[in-house]
């Protein structure tokens, strides 16, 4: 039936209740959960596109430490302070920034409850909580074990810890990296990490080895990374695919041992990147599916599980888009446009979505992957045929690798300004 008729009835009732507020153009109250790339961008673009809209952003941290360029911190090429973004630019843009933990969403009453008991009412809600780590996904691993075997997959204290361990490691030591299966935050991230740590080892600890025990049989930018490892760090890095026993089944932090089909391997430093799922608030609010991620309408990033809620960034299921800061930024803009249109009673604008991911192999060697996406209600988000894709396999006189390393830094500075001001 009558989905249509029922929606009409509900719509009529809702209209009676909210008509006075909607009468003044698009103004309304939007609450955004999470000030990462997705949430910050959504908040900024809501205000930029309609200064009359009331935007409140909830963030549990005082500032954002970005995952992009956190691998450069591990290599010793960047500081944690250098990848920390203040929220002052969001406040200056007229966004109310509330420091707190969103602990529950009341979908019926349209309000967000914070850990301190206060409530924020909304007309539309943007949920951009990023990822939660599923520590139980690897036997023997836990939040406590991450003090011995850091994941460093949320930038901050874990990044500092892993850097300290790498600095303390003797020359000739073994560094083990264990990336998870798909999907996960930043698909090329583990391999950029391997590269920049190898770059550090080459300069300071050239007898050291890096073992990559992978749950997967292939990975993002694989051909480019492996060619670079061969040319820049010959003999230093061994990658073991899941099909060859690379998937880590369990770990023993007390003996710094990882166990996989390949055998038991002891590391001097172990970076275990566990499986992931949408941030806890998305799970508890019922916005996620059985696989732990949140289904959305690809045209608007509106949740398919709850009305008046949009889910963006790593937490969302976004078709061909990887879970990246760049994807989250693009999705924030789409959600902002869709929300303003819906508050004004207009159809959502057609979405424009892209992704640009740079990876550094060394501070002077950059590679990238990019796509501009096609979006339809039926097929969802797909890459554009015969376009986008990877950096050239064989560099030319243009000096692609060096140029892309410089563009990676420019990208970081510019996407930061676009997201946080």
């Amino acid at each position: 039936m009558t989905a249509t008729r029922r929606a009409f009835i509900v719509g009529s009732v809702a209209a009676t209740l909210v008509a006075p507020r909607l009468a003044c153009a698009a103004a309304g109250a939007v609450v955004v959960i999470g000030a990462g790339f997705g949430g910050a961008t959504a908040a900024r673009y809501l205000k930029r596109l309609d200064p009359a809209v009331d935007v409140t952003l909830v963030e549990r941290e005082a500032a954002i430490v970005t995952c992009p360029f956190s691998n450069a911190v591990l290599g010793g090429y960047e500081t944690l302070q250098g990848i920390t973004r203040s929220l002052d630019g969001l406040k200056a843009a007229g966004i109310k920034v509330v420091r707190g933990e969103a602990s529950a969403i009341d979908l019926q009453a349209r309000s967000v409850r914070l850990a301190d008991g206060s409530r924020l009412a909304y007309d539309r809600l943007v949920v951009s909580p990023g990822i939660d780590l599923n520590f139980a996904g690897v036997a023997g691993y836990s939040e406590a074990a991450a003090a011995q075997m850091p994941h460093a997959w949320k930038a901050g204290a874990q990044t500092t810890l892993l850097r300290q361990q790498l600095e303390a490691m003797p020359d000739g030591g073994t560094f083990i990296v264990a990336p998870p299966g798909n999907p996960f935050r930043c698909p090329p991230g583990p391999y950029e990490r391997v590269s920049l740590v190898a770059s550090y080892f080459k300069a300071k600890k050239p007898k050291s080895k890096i073992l990559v025990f992978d749950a997967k049989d292939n990975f993002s930018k694989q051909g480019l990374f492996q060619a670079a490892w061969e040319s820049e760090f010959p003999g230093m890095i061994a990658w073991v695919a899941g099909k060859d026993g690379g998937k880590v089944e369990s770990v023993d932090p007390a003996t710094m041992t990882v166990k996989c089909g390949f055998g038991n391997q002891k590391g001097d430093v172990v970076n275990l990147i566990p499986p992931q799922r949408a941030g806890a608030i998305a799970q508890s609010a019922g916005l996620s599916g059985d696989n732990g991620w949140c289904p959305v309408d690809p045209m608007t990033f509106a949740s398919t599980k709850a009305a008046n809620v949009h889910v963006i960034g790593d937490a969302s299921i976004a078709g061909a888009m990887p879970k990246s800061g760049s994807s989250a930024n693009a999705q924030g803009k789409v959600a902002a446009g869709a929300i303003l249109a819906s508050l004004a009673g207009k159809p959502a604008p057609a979405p424009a979505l892209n992704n640009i991911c740079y990876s550094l192999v060394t501070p002077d060697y950059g590679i990238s992957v990019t796509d501009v996406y096609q979006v339809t209600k039926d097929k969802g988000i797909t890459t554009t045929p015969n376009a986008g894709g990877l950096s050239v396999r064989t560099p030319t006189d243009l000096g692609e690798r060096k140029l892309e390393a410089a563009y990676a830094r420019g990208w970081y500075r510019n996407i930061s300004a676009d997201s946080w001001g």
Partner: protein
Amino acid sequence: MRALAAFAATLLAAGAAVAQDGPSGQAMVQTCYVCHGPEGRSAEGVPALMRGQKELVMRQMVEFKTDRRPATIMNRVAKSYSDEQIASIADYLAGLK
């Protein structure tokens, strides 16, 4: 009542309908800002976007698209857009203050 029905109809439209045409020039250009900076005013490394020069922007995008102009990434990006979309992008950029 007629007003209410009309209003409900707009609500329904808002929930279901999306413009049939592709994204606007503004929506497409906004995606450029991740690399080129907000409003295309790059702060580092990446060239800023040109304003007020529709013909030049169109010509350069077509040159990227057809690999007549060497590039690291813009050739891959430009191939994603139809000539009409490139015109729409150039049109929006030309009007940026």
